[in-house]
């Protein structure tokens, strides 16, 4: 970050001096490029950072420009007043366009947003107030303390200042806890929800942000061109914008800016060969998507990774137990499941399952494949709603709570097949979980950015502590998917613990671990329990279950068939039948009940 400051400063000075070397036309081209760069940031935020396929960015742009045009020419408002209202309108439209995102994602969202962009285009082409297909001309020159902004040169300075602020804010948001949450949602919305991210609100936020940037770009466009017409906001331009963001690198704000500027300039150079330009950028988009999905911005990292691979390896350190331990209250119930049933398309996955986990216990949940263990976890962590039965957390009824609310209520979980955020670093994975603020807190990003910085720094310190405790400090900057499986498992547990949970649900934490790793896992889980966390663990590794758990609940075909201390459970005939085959088969030398009794 600090190394980037001189670079940014240099670029800033270069940008400031740029007009002195340009003729009037080149200046205008640069002015337009800056507008597209702003649009690119907006699209990058919503699509690259938050993972929402948004093909209505060009409509946000249009809303900004048109509102500005309509309010200045029809309502006679001053330019800057109109501009402020235009931003508001763009944000509002962003809010409206985000509503489908709450229901559908991916290609569905793509076609819906594309449809809404067409609807907008259709509206401005028809509405008399929007000047119909001829658009609105003769927008006033934005007043600026006597500086003549009709000059492209001087307007450039307005643009570049707005752009610098917008870029800085975007970079700030992406690096701040909000951006981290958005990226976490993009990588895995389920896991993000389990960590307390309010997915619907985050999606709305993403669209509102892109609306805001679209609006800013629209206002600048209105001030620069002083003419608006429907063609400018066409689908062809939407795809051009998309190409900019993909070629630049959608996940990187700087990449989006780079893509926008580069493509704007190329388009200008090839203005007399627009078909070839179209052919060219279409081809580049296809090639980028296949060979360099991270775009131009991702290329250095791609090359660096190859280079770094040969360097020395980081080492996993041992876990440092939590010092302070909260003494469990004997007999106090941490989790109670009452008569829960769950049905999938006629298949009864859970059939009146009840179990009670006391405070400070390590509870094992075992059973053959398909016996309903993970379904049970999904109900306790809020991913599934159960039709029948109740779930109580420390006596409080939490049945039907959404995952983020359960997370806030102190439930943390890991996943059978590891759901780490693949494009976030290990440290960021931890940070997402550490951030316990509500999403509604985001108003502070606009009003009190310093408070955000302070919080951010605080979280960073906690993350470092936690990484140290779990022996992961040397992997802080690594991407999880590049790490050995055993370490990924540890990261996931550390991430769950970062939430400071009361109840920890571990879904097959030993799957894929070797003997030594399983032993260390057992140590960690015990230490976590000792620090006051109640643990429920689904596991196939029976050795681990038998040695680690205080009590074991056995599920078979969605029903509880045994519940008790491990040794006792192992002697229950139904359990052996469920595992080995028929129970008659047990009457063998060395009766099981005798063995269990030893």
């Amino acid at each position, binding site marked *: 970050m600090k190394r980037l400051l001189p670079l940014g400063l240099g670029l800033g000075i270069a940008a400031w001096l740029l007009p002195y070397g340009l003729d009037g036309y080149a200046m205008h081209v640069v002015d337009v490029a800056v507008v597209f760069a702003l649009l690119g940031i907006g699209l990058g935020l919503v699509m690259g950072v938050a993972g929402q396929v948004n093909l209505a960015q060009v409509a946000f742009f249009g809303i900004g420009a048109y509102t500005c045009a309509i309010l200045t020419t029809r309502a006679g408002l001053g330019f800057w007043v109109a501009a402020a209202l235009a931003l508001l309108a763009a944000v509002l439209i962003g809010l409206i366009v985000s509503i489908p995102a709450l229901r559908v994602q991916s290609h569905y969202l793509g076609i819906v947003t594309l449809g809404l962009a067409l609807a907008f285009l259709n509206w401005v082409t028809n509405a008399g107030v929007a000047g119909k297909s001829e658009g609105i001309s003769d927008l006033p020159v934005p007043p600026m303390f006597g500086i003549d902004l009709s000059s492209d040169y001087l307007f450039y300075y307005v643009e570049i200042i707005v752009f610098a602020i917008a870029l800085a804010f975007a970079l700030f948001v992406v690096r701040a806890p909000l951006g981290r949450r958005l990226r976490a949602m993009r990588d895995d919305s389920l896991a993000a929800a389990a960590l307390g991210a309010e997915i619907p609100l985050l999606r709305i936020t993403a669209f509102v942000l892109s609306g805001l940037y679209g609006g800013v770009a629209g206002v600048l466009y209105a001030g620069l061109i002083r003419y608006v017409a429907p063609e400018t906001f066409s689908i062809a331009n939407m795809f051009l914008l998309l190409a900019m963001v993909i070629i630049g690198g959608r996940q990187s704000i700087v990449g989006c800016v780079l893509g926008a500027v580069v493509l704007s300039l190329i388009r200008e150079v090839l203005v007399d060969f627009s078909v070839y330009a179209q052919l060219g950028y279409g081809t580049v988009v296809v090639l980028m998507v296949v060979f360099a999905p991270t775009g131009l911005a991702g290329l250095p990292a791609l090359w660096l990774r190859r280079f770094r691979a040969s360097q020395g390896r980081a080492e996993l350190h041992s876990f440092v137990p939590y010092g302070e331990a909260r003494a469990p209250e004997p007999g106090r119930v941490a989790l109670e499941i009452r008569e829960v049933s769950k049905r999938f398309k006629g298949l009864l996955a859970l059939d009146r399952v009840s179990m009670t986990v006391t405070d400070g216990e390590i509870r094992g949940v075992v059973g*053959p*494949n*398909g016996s309903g263990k993970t379904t049970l976890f999904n109900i306790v962590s809020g991913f599934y709603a159960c039709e029948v039965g109740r779930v109580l957390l420390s006596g409080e009824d939490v049945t039907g709570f959404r995952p983020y609310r359960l997370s806030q209520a102190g439930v943390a979980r890991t996943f059978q097949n590891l759901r780490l955020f693949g494009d976030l670093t290990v440290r960021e994975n931890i940070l997402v979980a550490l951030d316990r603020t509500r999403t509604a807190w985001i108003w502070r990003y606009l009003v009190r950015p310093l408070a955000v910085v302070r919080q951010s720094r605080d979280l960073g310190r906690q993350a470092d502590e936690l990484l140290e405790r779990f022996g992961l400090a040397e992997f802080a900057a690594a991407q999880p*998917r590049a*790490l*050995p*499986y*055993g370490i*990924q498992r540890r990261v996931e547990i550390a991430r769950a613990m970062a939430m400071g949970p009361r109840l920890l649900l571990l879904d*097959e934490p030993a*799957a*894929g671990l*070797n*003997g030594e790793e399983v032993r260390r896992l057992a140590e960690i889980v015990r230490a976590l329990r000792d620090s006051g966390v109640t643990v429920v663990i689904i596991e*196939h*590794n*029976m*050795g*681990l*279950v*038998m040695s680690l758990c205080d009590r074991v609940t056995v599920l078979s*075909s969605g029903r509880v068939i045994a519940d008790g201390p491990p040794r006792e459970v*192992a002697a229950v005939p139904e*359990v*052996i039948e469920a*595992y*080995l*085959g*028929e129970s008659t*088969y*047990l009457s*063998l*030398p*060395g009766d*099981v009940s005798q*063995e*269990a009794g030893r």
Partner: protein
Amino acid sequence: MSTLTVEGLGLRYGGVRAVHDVAFSVAAGEAVGIIGANGAGKTSTLKAIMGLAPRTAAVLRYGERDLNRTPAHQVVRAGIGYVPEGRHVFPGLSVENNLLLGAYTRSWRRISFDQVYGLFPVLAEMRHRLAGALSGGQQQMLAIGRALMSQPRLILLDEPSMGLSPKLVEDILAVLKRLNEDGTAILLVEQNAKLTFEVTTRSLVMENGEIAMTGTSQALRGDPKVRRIYLGL
């Protein structure tokens, strides 16, 4: 006659080591079992043999055929039939189409369902039903029937007893015995140890992706160590 030979077989999912250094062989006409608890690597072993998951193996051959260099869709042409775990019939296709697909590598002109319908008369009755509409047991029969349609000399079965009633398990058991008596080699993966021991002459016990024990089914049947491996005692 062909022998399936496996040496140094390993398989990883992402970073997970599911199978490590597994070696065994199945001679022509032999019935071999692989048993073990959930997650022991049994299913992965079969998938590795079939080439359905990226694997590494020092030796992986069936008779003259080097399976290491055979693409997954060609394995069936070597004479190996596969009954996947969880049946995996094609739910949207009719029973007959499912069976026909079993014979995908053969010409459909002179195809006969007699063998399969003889083994599983119920499938003949249901031949026009969608496979997805069958009961679990019927689907299991269909999955076995589908594998038989390729006229394999070795058939790999993955947990054919899963989720079936004892009566149906008995039926399946009888079919497997009959197939074996008729000369088809069997590699049976099961969690149900009892069933396995009844069908096979030799078995391997897997634990954590490795072979923990091997022996004749007769000997393993009486060995309490098997149970300990299962229950983690």
